[in-house]
């Protein structure tokens, strides 16, 4: 279950009538790899196709925590193995105790608002150091920088065509000899189709039957 960048490169070269490798200078290998990175990241953000558990460590009195490397989103949080309910800062403002940001204890809830991008908060803040905070959310398994020999793990091969379509949409939108408005529109349409398929199979792979 992986996408081989070299295979995407081969089909791109074939489509651009440069079999065997880009040599005409209309598109460089560096541009191609940048498009792969951009499209794969966009595809993963839109479909959340790959999910995983991530961990970080709690600190006494610290409310806010950052996502870890490779983490794209956050769905659920566990503190020391115990599930925390999702909440929002506004409802915590109205808890009877008030002054919540200085409270410490065993966290009961987590929230996304008021904690900045790629971060979340715990209420109350932990009252001890070193406990494990486990996060569940979408993951970007891509290891950068990419090369033609890179493997993008965990994305099923069934989506290779659509990743390629996203890359072709970008190539056909570039100013210069490769620009082709019809193909750009066609490939963007196919890429959107792939995103839609990714989303529906993910809903099956996340929700109870």
């Amino acid at each position: 279950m992986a996408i081989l960048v070299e295979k995407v490169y081969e089909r791109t070269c074939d489509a651009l009538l440069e079999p065997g490798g880009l040599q005409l200078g209309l598109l460089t290998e560096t541009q191609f790899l940048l498009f792969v990175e951009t499209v794969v990241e966009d595809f993963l953000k839109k479909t959340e196709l790959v999910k995983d558990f991530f961990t970080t460590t709690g600190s006494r009195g610290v409310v806010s925590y950052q996502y870890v490397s490779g983490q794209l989103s956050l769905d659920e949080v566990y503190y020391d193995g115990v599930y925390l309910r999702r909440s929002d800062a506004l409802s915590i403002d109205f808890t009877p105790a008030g002054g919540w940001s200085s409270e410490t204890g065993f966290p009961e809830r987590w929230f996304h608002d008021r904690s900045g991008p790629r971060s979340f908060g715990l209420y109350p803040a932990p009252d001890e150091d070193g406990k494990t905070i486990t996060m569940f959310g979408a993951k970007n398994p891509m290891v950068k920088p990419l090369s033609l020999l890179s493997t993008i793990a965990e994305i099923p091969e069934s989506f290779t065509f659509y990743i390629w379509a996203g890359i072709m949409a970008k190539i056909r939108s570039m100013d210069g000899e490769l620009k082709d408005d019809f193909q750009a529109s066609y490939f963007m349409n196919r890429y959107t189709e792939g995103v839609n398929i990714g989303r529906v199979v993910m809903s099956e792979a996340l929700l109870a039957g």
Partner: protein
Amino acid sequence: MDITRADLRDRILQRLENNYGFYEEAEIDRAINDSIRILNAVTGLLQSSYNISGNSVAGQAVYTVPSAILVPLAVYFDNEPLSKTDLRSLSLDRPEWRMETTATLGAQVSRWVPLGLNRFAIWPADAVGGHTIRVDGLQEPSFTDLADEVLPIHAEHAEVIEGHAFHTLTVKEGGKIFLDSTLKVFRQQYRQKIQSLQIWADELMPYLRVQVKAEKA
């Protein structure tokens, strides 16, 4: 009736006016494989079962879906079906589920939780290990690309695969040939057919608007 790769290659090449020089066999195979993969993801055509390699591990709740499965649909523990639940429901019901095992609860493994395409959890975790865990699901197709390979499709799907593979190959031609194949093969035939076959309720294929410039008289 079995459809072999050689059959389909021939049919596609005929539609490409037997242009052997322009279309490599590997390109045709890639277009066939892509088309089968897409058809499968949209229609749920291929389904199969695989055991987790190494069986259950003592105390382990989260497992990797076998790589041959594209979407896990059901999980069996020692051939007994597990009840499917989602992560939030299990977590709300059992806030400490990640630490619970068959030994701590004195209960059998009874539920499974899909965690995306690549992972799933069982609850409670098996305290002993060594039990079989089977995953049923939508299969990720694999191919040998040999001429005598029997393709994993039904005869009624051959036309859809052939049409889509032909259409995607014409990208290389560009211009009017690709435009024609988009309008006539992709939009009028393929899109409608695949929508009639899809198992998902959502609209998957956005309508492709094509602006055709009028030719000068």
